[in-house]
Every structure is written in structure tokens, then in C-alpha cells.
């Protein structure tokens, strides 16, 4: 999927300016940049989660299999069924582990031969099955933070999307749980297109195939900071031989 001349406004505030990105199939793309530069905003545009912010306005094109996601006849709910999402803070439903996974297939009316098998498969794909197989009826809240986040991933893949968006999926996790989720991402790459936002450059370097670096430029008159894409390239290039001075400054920790 790709974005063309994507601009996002919150009310009168220009949050993101002219972003052109092409996300590779079965690749992990990382969006990095300092706080407030619009990474989450761009991510949320991809599956129209930004529709839920009443003041948000999107200009430009987001193409998914050559269909404009913001096209007139497109149903945002349908879009989200194809493009799943995992959030910064693990947000399992206050239901059983089983129901957490089964919820998505049920609400979209997905036909599965056996829901039990489907749930098991999704939990296996999320590398969580062994840890929870004896307590499927327990609340999702009874899991540790890292397990909850993997449960959310299991839940996201249960509706069989082909793109998964992840907004700082590990920022609330400890190093061990982070490792588990990162391993999972790399496995999932085989079947899904994954786009992650992360604050953690090491993480981007570890898992992603491509990296987009954003920054925010303050408007001279209003002082509002509009996000823009600085550089988008193979991860190894971004971290090894950045072509933009700002990228280099950021990567080397000179600011941020």
C-alpha cells in the first residue's frame, strides 16, 4: 500500500505535510522520529482510524491494492477489516482470552469451520498458545503486559487482515517481553505486511526492512509544529549512511 501527498489537519492545525510512502509487501516498515512529528497520525490514516477524531481532516491519497481508502464509496469499517491494528498500550477486552480472539471473527461475520481451531491457530501464530492453552477462559487482564500485547496481536490477526499497523507496540514492555514481541513480528512478516511506529531506534534497526524518518518543523508565525517525512529508505541505509543531516543528527542522538 502507499500514500501520496498525504496531509492531515486537526482543526486548523496542519499536523502532517505531504507524506509519500510506499510500503512493501511482506516487509516491516518502521516509522521513526521525535515526539509529535506525526508518526501515529500517519499510521492511523492508513486504516482510517483517524475518522474517529472529529476534528481530523485528511487530504491526499492512501492506496490499498490500488483502491483509494478515502474514496467516496469506501466503507471505513471494511478498510479496518483488511488492515488490522495493534496499539501502544495493550488493550485486551475485559473478556476471556478465548473471547478476545474470537470477538473479531464474530463481529465481522467471518465463516470459520471451527472457532476453537481458529482461536488456537491465531494464538499459536502470536506465539502465545503454550502459555495460555490451559486458561483460555480466564480474563485477558490476568496476563502479564507482554502476554497481553501478544494477545492483542493474536486478536488482530484473527480477522485475517493482510496489513498490520503497530503503534509503539513495545514501549510499555520490559526488555524480555519486547524481545518476544520483536521475534513475533519477524515471524509474522512472512504472511503480513507490517508497519510499526517506534521511538526506539534500536528496535527499528533490529526488526525493520525499511525505515521512514519524520521530523517536525515549527511554523515561523504560529509556532505550530508540522510533521514531515525527511528520509525513507532501507533500514541499513538510514542507520548506516543517512543522506540527510537531520536524520544523522537524530540517529546519533544529537537531539531528541
Amino acid at each position, binding site marked *: 500500500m502507499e500514500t501520496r501527498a498525504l496531509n492531515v489537519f486537526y482543526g486548523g492545525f496542519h499536523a502532517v505535510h505531504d507524506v509519500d510512502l510506499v510500503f512493501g509487501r511482506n516487509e516491516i516498515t518502521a516509522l521513526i522520529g521525535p515526539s509529535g512529528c506525526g508518526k501515529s497520525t500517519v499510521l492511523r490514516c492508513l*486504516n482510517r*482510524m483517524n475518522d*474517529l477524531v*472529529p476534528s481530523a481532516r485528511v487530504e491526499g491519497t492512501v492506496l490499498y491494492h490500488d483502491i483509494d481508502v478515502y474514496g467516496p464509496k469506501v466503507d471505513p*469499517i*471494511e478498510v*479496518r*477489516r*483488511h488492515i*488490522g*491494528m495493534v*496499539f501502544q*498500550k495493550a*488493550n*485486551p*477486552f*475485559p473478556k476471556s482470552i478465548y473471547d478476545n480472539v474470537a*470477538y*473479531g471473527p464474530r*463481529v*465481522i461475520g467471518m465463516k470459520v469451520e471451527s472457532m476453537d481451531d481458529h482461536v488456537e491457530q491465531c494464538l499459536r501464530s502470536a506465539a502465545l498458545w503454550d502459555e495460555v492453552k490451559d486458561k483460555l477462559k480466564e480474563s485477558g487482564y490476568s496476563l502479564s503486559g507482554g502476554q497481553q500485547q501478544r494477545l*492483542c496481536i493474536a*486478536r*488482530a490477526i*484473527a*480477522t485475517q487482515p493482510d496489513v498490520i499497523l503497530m503503534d509503539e507496540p513495545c514501549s510499555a514492555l520490559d526488555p524480555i517481553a519486547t524481545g518476544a514481541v520483536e521475534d513475533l513480528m519477524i515471524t509474522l512478516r512472512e504472511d503480513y505486511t507490517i508497519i510499526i511506529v517506534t521511538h526506539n531506534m534500536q528496535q527499528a534497526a533490529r526488526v525493520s526492512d525499511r525505515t521512514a524518518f519524520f521530523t517536525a518543523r515549527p511554523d515561523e508565525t504560529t509556532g505550530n509544529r508540522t510533521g514531515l517525512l525527511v528520509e525513507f529508505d532501507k533500514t541499513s541505509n538510514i542507520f548506516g549512511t543517512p543522506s540527510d543531516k537531520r536524520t544523522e543528527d537524530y540517529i546519533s542522538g544529537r537531539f531528541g
Partner: protein
Amino acid sequence: MTRTATASARRTTELNLEDGARRGKWKGEVFRALLILCLVIAFVTLLAVIVQAAVKGWSRLDWNLITQMPSTLDRETSGMKSAIFGTIYLMGGLVLTVVPIGVSAAIFMEEFADQSKWWVRFIDLNIQNLAAVPSIVFGILGLALIVRGPLSLGTVAYAGSLTLAMLVLPTIILASREAIRSVPVTLRNGSLGLGATKWQTIWHHVLPSAVPGMVTGTILALSRAIGETAPLLLVGATVFVTYTPDGFFDGAYTALPVQIYQWASRPQEEFRILASAGVIVLLAVLLAMNSVAIWIRNKFTRDL
């Protein structure tokens, strides 16, 4: 650089961190005592209301009070059965009417309304404003439009319920909105991100999480409604009924506060005692309702 605070050296010599070194410490204590006094005023009054009614009504706090119909002839055994049943009918009709409407309105305002639209803000303003309209004005409204006028229900229990429903509707909407608002946005996003529709999200996640808050708000609103007298006087709660209502739409009814008011304005001492005993019954119902509300609130806030 101007050396403003040559702090360290100077202050060390006179360093004293001891309790009591600070001047004016007593002020804080006096202030705290005054604040507690403010609460005490309120609580002592509540206690005085209860004690005064209990002392006065003590001799009539018996089973007859609950099991017998009111009587002018046998004041010693007169009861308030019809009033109790009338109040049950009133409250039943009220709950069945106001909860669906109130909760639905709250869902609309929180989940679907676009706050930038003028008419949404108008409805919002209207609800807030309605919350503080004097209850007696609702009595006038109920008499003109429900008992008579377009609905013409007559002086039946449901006319009273409907009048009270309009009275507590804003309270229920506001409480339900509060409850809906407190459902974490992450839960909503989780569901919507899976491709659930808005209504599916509300039905499966928002409402179940908001129910405790809604129930508490509703019970508190009902405990206000149960003591309302003035509007009922206008919409025709009768004062002397020796039978329980036939239904929501049939027959005369009376209600606890109306019966109490009527007894309180009779000259005979027996009636005044009955009024005080009635106050105790009403307060007991009220306390029971509040306790349930608190229980629900505590139970669910612990679970979440």
C-alpha cells in the same frame, strides 16, 4: 550573572527543619477544623431529621403502617399500604420509561453526536438546563400536557411516572454520559480497529463497561424522584385511597410523600405521628436505594 541566591552558605547556619519551627502552624489546624465543621453541619442535620422523625413517629412504626390502608376512622391502626404501592407503581413506570430514553440519549450524545453541529450543542445545552428546572414547573407541564391536553392520561399512576420521568431525565442522561465517557478509549479503538461497527463496539464493550456507572446514577436519580411531592400534588396523586393501583393506566393512586404531606397538615396528633413514621419509611427506602448504589459502585470500581 547576578548572584541572587547566595543560598547555601547562609542558610545552613540557621538551618532548622524542625516541626514547629514554622510560624502560623495553628492556622492550618483551625482551617481544617472549620472544614470538618462544614461537613458536620450537614451530617448533624441529616441525623437530626432522622432522629426527630423517629422519636415522634416511634409509636406508629409497626406492621400496621405497612400492611394497612389509610383510615380516618381508625387512626391508631391506619397505615400507608396504598401509598407504598402507589410509589412502587410510580417508580416502576418511571424506570421503564426513563432508563431506555435516558441511556439512549446519552449514547447518542457521547457516541454519535458531532459537537461542532449547532443543534447538537443546542440539545446538550437543553439537557443541562432542564436539570435545574424547578420541580413544580414539571408539575404544571404534567397537568397541562399529560393529565390533560395531548396525552389526556387522566390522574393515573403513569401520568405521575411520566411527569417524574421528565424531571429526572436530564440527571440520568448526564450520569450515563459520564459513565460512557469513562470507558477507556483504548477499548473502543481495540474493537473498531478489528473492523467492528460503531454499534457493535458500543453494544459489546462500551455499554457493559458503563453499566455500573449508569446504574448508580440512575438509582441516585430515582432516590430524588421518590421524594418528590410538589409535582405529584399538581398531577393528581390523590390523598385518600384505600386500594392499590389497578395498573399504570387505571385508577387513583397516592404516593408516600403525598401521604406524608397530607398527614402533616392535619390537626390531629395521630396524623402528625403517622407523618413522622411515614418520613422514617421514606428515609429507609431512600437509604436502601443509596446503599445499593454505593454497593454497585464499590463492587465494580474494585473489579476494573
